[in-house]
């Protein structure tokens, strides 16, 4: 037997891919600071964290050590590290989804277990820490065609991500009396396999500091024929960029920033200011100051003021709703001479004022449900319609069954000549329930249909439900096909069994 070699090109695990990092003051409790890291860009429903990764948010104390063209920030230890690992899936109870648990390890050594997608999250007994992990609406929005530098609609509309949110008591955890300015990064690191890690350097899958270090600054599409050095960047150690590669990355940043400066045809950056800006971006960590206000507009203000030779006024950081791309492009293209605005200034859903601060996930699985209440016992109705091969829908001309039991196929010839093939996935005669999937004939993917008959007073209710992702013909068309099929089928039962009074 042959298996044609057409191997996977998409080999990385998307659940290791960090999309964004946030640091802001809790809108719910101003004495608390929130850190959040998102992974798995554009994930669909049901996405789950990898159990082979340590996700970390690492904070170091920072200070300003130069202003203007000599602007520089320095960070120092000890690190304040928040680590999160996730387990393999646990089987849920019957008919429920499997669940996943994670364990957070906090800077003081406390551990906290969280259940993924539990909106309430979990808190340590002393109240210092609270954590959430799960699927959320992606708060990031990119409303520019970057190569053409043109405003556009949000390219991440309706996207979801997996979010890790950690809230901590600012005073007890960050101790701002020793200095209130901090730098923060997030990283994903694979878990070692047994003792095999000995002798190997720590491999980092991804890390992130300020937004868009890799995709807009290092990999500026305006730089023709420039090598893609993003993988090399991702291998670097945060807060400790290797000296031998610093010149490479610095030169790329200078080239990229010079290119960005001229995107509007005007030069706003002097060579020395541009070099200072490149040096600032080279040390890639998100700066925030817990003693000053962190707002939707304060992102990058610490860096910008310092480069402009002034004392910074805000807490910088990054809130859930910060319009980071417009802030960044305005800075790089015209040094804040005039605000640039993309095609939209909002994400699919805004952040929330309460924990976990990231909006509920976007759903895209379409569903069609129809039901009819009948004046007949559930068992009587089920006996007539509950077999997978039962032909009770007037739109169906004929049904041919292939095989038996779960896995059985039914080939449905419709009265209009079309053919639909469905596979029986589950059947429970005692609960009067069956579930099937579509093999072909309905232009949808991941189509799951159910038929259930339940008691309803002295009679019964029949419910047909389908969930699917429209494929090829548009959602409305597929919904119309399915709902017509359900409606005509269920209506045909009324004269047969009588309508419930």
């Amino acid at each position: 037997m042959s298996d044609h070699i057409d191997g996977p090109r998409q080999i990385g695990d998307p659940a290791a891919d960090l999309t964004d990092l946030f640091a802001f003051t809790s809108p719910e409790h101003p004495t608390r600071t929130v850190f959040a890291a998102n992974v798995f860009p554009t994930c669909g429903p049901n996405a789950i964290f990898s159990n082979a990764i340590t996700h970390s948010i690492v904070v170091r104390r920072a200070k300003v050590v130069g202003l203007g063209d000599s602007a520089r920030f320095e960070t120092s230890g000890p690190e304040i590290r928040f680590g999160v690992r996730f387990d393999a899936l646990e089987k849920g109870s019957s008919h429920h989804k499997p669940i996943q648990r994670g364990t957070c390890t906090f800077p003081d050594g406390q551990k906290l277990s969280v259940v993924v997608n539990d909106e309430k999250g979990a808190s340590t007994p002393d109240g210092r820490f609270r954590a959430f992990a799960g699927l959320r609406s992606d708060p990031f929005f990119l409303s520019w065609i970057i190569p053409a530098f043109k405003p556009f609609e949000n390219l991440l509309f309706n996207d979801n991500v997996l979010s890790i949110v950690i809230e901590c008591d600012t005073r007890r955890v960050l101790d701002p009396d020793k200095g209130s300015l901090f730098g923060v990064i997030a990283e994903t690191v694979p878990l070692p396999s047994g003792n095999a890690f000995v002798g190997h350097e720590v491999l980092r899958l991804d890390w992130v500091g300020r937004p868009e270090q890799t995709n807009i600054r290092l990999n500026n599409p305006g730089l023709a024929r420039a090598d893609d050095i993003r993988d090399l960047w991702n291998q670097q150690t945060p807060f400790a960029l290797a000296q031998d590669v610093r010149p490479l990355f610095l030169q790329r940043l200078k080239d990229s920033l010079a290119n960005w400066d001229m995107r509007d045809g005007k030069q706003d950056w002097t060579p020395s200011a541009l070099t200072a800006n490149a040096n600032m971006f080279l040390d890639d960590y998100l700066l925030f100051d817990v003693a000053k206000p962190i707002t939707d507009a304060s992102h990058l203000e610490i860096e910008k003021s310092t480069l402009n030779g002034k004392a910074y006024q805000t807490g910088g950081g990054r809130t859930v709703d910060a319009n980071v791309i417009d802030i960044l492009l305005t800075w790089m293209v015209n040094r804040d001479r005039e605000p640039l605005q993309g095609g939209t200034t909002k994400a699919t859903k805004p952040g929330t004022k309460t924990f976990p601060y990231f909006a509920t996930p976007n759903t895209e699985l379409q569903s069609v449900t129809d039901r009819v209440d009948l004046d007949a016992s559930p068992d009587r109705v089920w006996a007539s319609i509950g077999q997978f091969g039962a032909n009770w829908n007037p739109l169906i001309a004929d049904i041919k069954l292939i095989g038996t039991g779960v896995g059985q196929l039914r080939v449905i010839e419709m009265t209009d000549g079309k053919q639909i093939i469905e596979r029986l996935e589950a059947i429970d005669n005692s609960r009067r329930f069956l579930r099937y999937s579509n093999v072909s004939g309905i232009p949808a993917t991941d189509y799951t249909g159910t038929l259930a008959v339940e008691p309803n007073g002295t009679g019964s209710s029949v419910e047909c439900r389908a969930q699917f992702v429209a494929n090829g013909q548009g959602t409305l068309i597929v919904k119309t096909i399915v709902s017509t099929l359900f409606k005509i089928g269920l209506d045909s039962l009324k004269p047969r069994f009588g309508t419930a009074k």
Partner: protein
Amino acid sequence: MNEALDDWGNECFLTTDGDIAAINLKSARRRSWSRFSQNPLRAGIAELVVELEQLTAQFIGDVCALDRLEALVQELLEADAVSARAAMMQAQLASMAHRFTDARHFLTQAASRGAAQFDLKRLLLSVDQACGVNLDGMLDERRDIARKSGRIEDLVALGALLADLGEFAEADRTYRQALCEYQDVSPFPKAWTCFQLGELWGELVPVPQATRAAQWYERAIQCLPSYTRARVHLAEIYSSSGRTNDAQSLLISAISSSDPEVHWRLSDVLASQGNFVDAEAQMQVAHFGFENALRRHLLAFADHGAEFYAGSGSNCRKALDLARINVANRPTLRAFEQAHAIALSVGDQNAASELFAAATERWSGSAAFRSSPLSQRHSSNRRGATA
């Protein structure tokens, strides 16, 4: 000491649990379709859907992936019929469906429209390798690519080429190198490499080593429990060694995939256990599945269909027809071996002789031919002629 297990233990990192990876693949695939539907011309989205559907077909055994990709290409062509990108998508789909002549045509079209040389070359190499074209000449190129990139998919492709060339020991070393050097957490490449090792030792070497092959298939399934093809291959080994209950468990867990081979092998297992009623039901589903798949994607399923009809599918003439279609499409040594064996089993001496002559003409100069069952006939013919 078990050689296979030695190197398994040297891997550096854990990989994501296979069940999680399968759920995440489905999740990402769904979302990519949704994004594609919103705007088929969006940069990179069609390519992402193709990659995720390829993974789904390869690892989850979802034979409907090809149908979905046909819908994607149609939609892309409606939006943009004349771009290099559309031609590349057509070429990728054609290659995946084993329509290799079409794939070459679309690659030529993509090249004339300015597609990236790297992408063109990569897919053309894959098509040439699948068709057994210029394998010796390709070896240096594959080695070079693998050395430069160090990526697991390039090492596995090199290993597969070495196996095609009959260099089994080096193929084994290359696959194991790929495993040892793998530094990511996705279980798909690791499971794929283990599967290749299973196939190497279970099916490609002149004297198959079932135990060794089974260990690699078991590893593949351990990495990725939903890996349907690994389950089918392992079930074949279990079945042939009398472990029919184990084979049955493996296959029942894969029954939700749409791969008809699962039903075929399960039918065989059930029949060997004396459960003829269920065996017959499974066989009906298998028949339906193969006929459906062959009707929609003849070339993609020609070799698998030939094997089915030559075996429990009980239609040797159809098996021979399919095997010859496969040979005409991709005249690899393995395709010739399969068609020749089926011709002999049907008793069609003329077809066997034709296939033998064509195989000899094409492959007798290769190292792989020396370890092929065909070469034994070649040798005996030559001895006969000398006598």
